[in-house]
């Protein structure tokens, strides 16, 4: 599994990355979290509001900091 956080390094992106890490740990999954900060690469995902969460190449959430529990639900899918 590959998890990406899209965002230009704002406070919210850090929070989303932390929550994602917590969710992965809680599920006992060992996935790499990639932070994408480049505008062009963020745009390449079609995202208009950051931070966004991408799981296995699919954008699952934009413009908000999901709680760890919400991310777990998305990861289980």
């Amino acid at each position, binding site marked *: 599994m590959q998890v990406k956080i899209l965002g230009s390094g704002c406070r919210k992106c850090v929070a989303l990355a932390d929550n994602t890490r917590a969710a992965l740990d809680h599920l006992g999954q060992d996935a790499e979290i990639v932070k994408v900060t480049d505008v062009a690469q*963020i*745009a390449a995902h*079609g*995202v208009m509001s*950051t931070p966004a969460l991408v799981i296995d190449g699919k954008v699952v959430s934009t413009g908000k*900091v999901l709680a760890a529990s919400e991310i777990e639900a998305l990861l289980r899918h």
Partner: protein
Amino acid sequence: MGLLEWLNDQLLRMQWLSDLVRVLVERVFGLDMATRVGASLHFFIYDVIKIFILLSVLVFGISWVQSYFPPERTRRLLGGMQGFKANLSGALLGTLTPFCSCSSIPLFIGFTSSGLPLAVTFSFLISSPLVDMASLILLASVFNWTIAIAYVLIGIVLAVIGGTLIGYARMERYIEPFVLHSPVLDLPQEQLHTADRLKYAAGQVAEIFGRVWIYVLIGVGVGAAIHNWIPASLIGALLGEEHWWSVPLATLIAVPIYADIFGTLPIAEALVAKGVGLGTALAFMMSVTALSLPSLIMLKKVIRTPLLSLFVGIVLLGIIIIGYLFNSFAPLLT
């Protein structure tokens, strides 16, 4: 005194807070309000608390409204319109959407890649940092309702005209190619409940407060300094209304400065109190909020120099014209 006037004085201008801070300065600190130290301390404490209160209430209210207009919906709404109506709607929707120029680049890409005309996107981009509910209420609080409404109307006019002119220039070839080839993502919109909107609005207040409090302190500090320490004659010599170049000078000084209206307004307020023309002070404020070095550097990543220069040029020219207009009509507004 009428009820409306009383509400205006107490809720918006917060006369009660001014009186309270006066008691604090005079009785607790033992300073005379007629002295410079006493007066600047009063200005600083009163303005900081007032702006923090207004900021929290306003950001909460605006975020609530904003939760109904996520960028995807704005884009769909604008996509269905054409011509003047599209420009006007772009400018109006710009007043509802983000507070920070940092979020405008992803929006620019998302709008452009979905095929929205440059004219509409730029109307949105110009109005977004320049005009919102916060500027309306804050200006009404610091100056008066006539000035506040005039500012908002004229900001929207600038956004519509600026966007339209940029559209006529046919500069699509100066958009970085990756922008046009970006995919258009339309996530299914989740149904938000009242609790979600509350949570979102509260989160926005916390986030924006955390980001701007330092600018507010700096802005009010500079305002207090202008108010009580810098001689009016010096400010008059630089930015006095009698100099034709005061408006362009104020506009240009402000371009590199990065702050939002919450930090800039105390400076504008102090300038006007020192006899600087209303239009000159507003031009300074508009230029600080609409253009900043960080946002221009970001824009440079998505558009090439000719288009960027046109955008900056049109906004600067617009602000300068608005400055002259406000200076000429100031007697009617105050």
